[in-house]
């Protein structure tokens, strides 16, 4: 009898069982827009080097250098904010907050991690902080403890209402969406997400499972 992994490979959807280990949450290390505006395919040490140089110049107060960093990384920051917030206006506010925070904290970037990696983590933290702030405001009114309570329930949709994965993610309750985006889209590990969100590992795993189950249901409609 075939083992289940043998069956899987034989069935062949071509997806590796374990994550590749690629450092996905490093802005600018994959396809992206170079600082000169051209599309960069594959790992881009040039982009990382250029970003590092620009970040060092920005640390001295060079706004023009920071603007070039913005143009190189804005689309990545936007994607993170949009997926976590699932709301265009809120994503724009979060992205702006992230860039201002990056400017304020530039002195803390020492070049040990790629600038894109540092910026990515900072952006995620800015969004999560805004969630926590909203939860505190909301809690004063409702005493709600579950982050998901501030979200609208998952819309039922209609039979046959097929939606793509992006839209399905946006429909997830916030807690499940956050964990799913950080883990399955951005590639953070459980321990990293637990540190960023303050969730216990068990809660995190349950949220991830919930997100995957809800997504499969939505995509099956």
């Amino acid at each position, binding site marked *: *009898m075939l*083992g*289940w992994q043998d*069956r*899987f490979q034989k069935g062949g*959807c071509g*997806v590796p*069982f*374990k*994550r590749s280990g690629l450092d*996905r949450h490093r*802005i600018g290390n*994959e*396809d*992206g*827009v170079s600082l000169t505006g051209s599309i960069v395919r594959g790992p881009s040490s040039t982009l990382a080097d250029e970003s590092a140089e620009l970040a060092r110049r*920005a*640390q*001295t*107060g060079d*706004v023009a250098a*920071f*603007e070039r960093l*913005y143009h190189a990384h*804005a*689309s*990545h920051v*936007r*994607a993170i904010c*949009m*997926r976590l917030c699932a709301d265009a*206006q*809120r994503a*724009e*506010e979060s*992205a*702006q907050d992230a860039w*201002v925070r990056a*400017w*304020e*904290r*530039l*002195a*803390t970037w020492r070049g040990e991690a790629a600038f894109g990696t540092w910026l990515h983590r900072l952006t995620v933290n800015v969004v999560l902080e805004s969630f926590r702030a909203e939860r505190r*405001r909301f809690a004063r009114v409702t005493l709600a403890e579950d982050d998901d309570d501030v979200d609208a329930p998952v819309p039922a949709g209609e039979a046959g209402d097929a939606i793509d*994965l*992006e839209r399905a*993610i946006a429909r997830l309750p916030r807690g499940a969406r956050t964990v*799913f985006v950080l*883990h*399955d*889209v951005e*590639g953070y590990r*459980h321990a990293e997400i637990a540190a960023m969100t303050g969730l216990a590992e068990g809660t995190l*795993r349950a949220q*991830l*499972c919930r997100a*995957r*189950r809800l997504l*499969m249901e939505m995509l099956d409609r």
Partner: protein
Amino acid sequence: MINHPDDQTLSDLLDDGLDPAERAGAEEHLAACDACFTRLQRLRMLVANASSLPRVMPAPAGEWQRIRARLHAAGSPAGRAPWWTQRTALLAAGLALVVASSGVTALLVGGRRDAAVQQTASTPAPAALTPRLAALEHEYATVTRDLERQLAEHKHMLAPETVAAVERSLQTIETAIAEAREALARDPGSETLARLLVAGHDQKVELLRHATRLVTQS
């Protein structure tokens, strides 16, 4: 009776999060159960598709201009130590938390500062602080004017109690801003008061943003 692994088990299996015994049991079941095997495969496809989503989305037009306006408020990062090592920043952060309290602001502007605040205020201020603050206030005015216009256009969509609460909060913040501005006029070298003024403006922008979001989403 067949014990099919639940979704949590399949999800954990996918993440390599089961202990060896649980994993062995799940694998044994999956080797024999088409339904569970198919479900795991679909789960795996979902995760693979998620990790393949595009990493970029176009940023909105004009975003950089809006960010640049706020960078001036933040000042230059040059030579800035991590904020947690800065006494001034810690004081400013603490003060920002209470900026909405005009009573506390009154203490500051009334000359009854405590020793820590006095020490910070004696720190030499950047030479161009006053012109910079003036430019900064102008930028804040532009941002808040837009938000206030949006709010005014849609405030009929909010409950009267909510409108009243927003207006009361705005009044409190504006009072604090005005008092900080007056105190700065008397003590233009005080970086603490400058930060207090900026924190007041930040609070106002944040409140207006929140209220605007309420009306645009209602």
